[in-house]
C-alpha cells in the first residue's frame, strides 16, 4: 500500500468497513511513514473537530416562535379536516334522503333504482327505506345513510345518481 492508496482508504478505516488485510497493510505502512501518520492524525482530528460545530441549542425566542407557529398550524389543519368531515356527513345525509324520496315516488333513474333494489334485497337495515311508496318517518339511521350513500359508487363512471 502506498501513501495515495492509504489516503484513499481512510474513510473505510475510520468507519470500520476496511477489509482486515488492508487494515494490516495500512498499519504496516503507518509504522514506516511519518507523513501518513501525520495525515491520518489530522484527518481524524478534522472529523472530531467538525462535530463541535453542531448547534444543539436553538435560541429560546426562536424556539417559542416556532412552537407557537407549529401548534397554530396544526390547529388550523385539524379544523380544516373537521370542517371537511362535517360537510361530507351532511352531504351524505342529503343524498340518502333524496334517494329514499325519489325511490318512493318512482322517480329514481333506472340504474340507481336497480342498484337500490338489489341492495334492499339483502340488507335488512335499508329494506324498510327502499319500498316504493313507503318512507319511514323521522331521520334516517347513520348505518342506512352509510349504505345508501355508498350506492352511488356502484354507478358506472360518468353516471350521475339522480340524472342531473
Amino acid at each position, binding site marked *: 500500500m502506498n501513501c495515495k492508496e492509504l*489516503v484513499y482508504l481512510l*474513510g473505510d478505516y475510520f468507519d470500520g468497513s476496511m477489509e482486515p488485510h488492508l487494515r494490516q497493510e495500512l498499519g504496516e505502512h503507518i509504522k514506516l511513514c511519518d507523513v501518513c501518520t501525520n495525515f491520518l492524525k489530522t484527518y481524524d482530528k*478534522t472529523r472530531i473537530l467538525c462535530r463541535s460545530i453542531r448547534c444543539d*441549542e436553538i435560541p429560546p425566542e426562536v424556539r417559542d416562535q416556532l412552537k407557537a407557529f*407549529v401548534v397554530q398550524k396544526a390547529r388550523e389543519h385539524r379544523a380544516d379536516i373537521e370542517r371537511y368531515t362535517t360537510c361530507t356527513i351532511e352531504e351524505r345525509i342529503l343524498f340518502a334522503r333524496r334517494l329514499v324520496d325519489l325511490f318512493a315516488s318512482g322517480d329514481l333513474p333506472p340504474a340507481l333504482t336497480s342498484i337500490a333494489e338489489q341492495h334492499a334485497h339483502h340488507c335488512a337495515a335499508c329494506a324498510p327505506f327502499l319500498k316504493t311508496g313507503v318512507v319511514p318517518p323521522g331521520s334516517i339511521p347513520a348505518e342506512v345513510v352509510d349504505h345508501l350513500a355508498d350506492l352511488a359508487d356502484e354507478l358506472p363512471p360518468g353516471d350521475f345518481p339522480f340524472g342531473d
Partner: protein
Amino acid sequence: MSTDRLQDDNLLLEELRAGTEASVEALFERFHGKIYSLALSILKNDSDAQEAAQDVFITVIRKVGTFKGDSALYSWIYRICVNSCLMRLRSRRRNETVSIEEFMPVFTEEGMHASLVDDWSKEVERNLLNKELGGVIQRYTDSLSEKYRVVFVLSDVEGLSNEETSEILGLSVPAVKSRLHRARLYLRERLTRYMTQGKVE
C-alpha cells in the same frame, strides 16, 4: 396522554394521525432541536433555518397519514428537512462555494505524498475551546458546496451512519462515503493551512 408514551414512534404517529394537540407538542419537543440544527447547518442562516423548520413541521403534520413506516420516523423527518433546505438553497441560486479540487492531497507518480504533512492535531488539543477555531471550522464547512455539505453535516456533524445518510438523501452508500471522504480531505487541508499559517485564507 402522557408525553412519555409519545416517545414511542408508533404511538406518536397514531396520535398525530388522530390530530391530538399533545402529539403535535410531543413531535415538536422531540424533533425541533435536531430539525433546526440540521437546517442551520445546511442553510447557514438563522431566519432561513427557522422557516425551513416551520415547513418541516407543517409537512409532517399534513403528510403523516401517507407515512407508511417503510423507514424510521426520524429518517423520514430528516429527509423532509433536507429536501426543504435544498429547495431553499436552489431558489437562492447563490454560488459562494469554492472548488474543493485545489485542496485535495497531491501525490508523486509513485503514489507518495508530494509534500510533508504537519501534525497539528496536538496543537488543537490546547485550543479545543478556542472560539476563533470554532468560527474558522464553521466558515470552512459553510464553503463546501451543497453536494458535499449535506452529506458531511448528516454524517459527521449529526453523527448518522453512512447507511442512514444514504437512505435520507437517496444516494448509494459508496456515493455517501466518497462525498464524505472528499469533504473531510478538503476540511483537513484548510485546517492544516490555518494551523500552519495562523490565518484564514
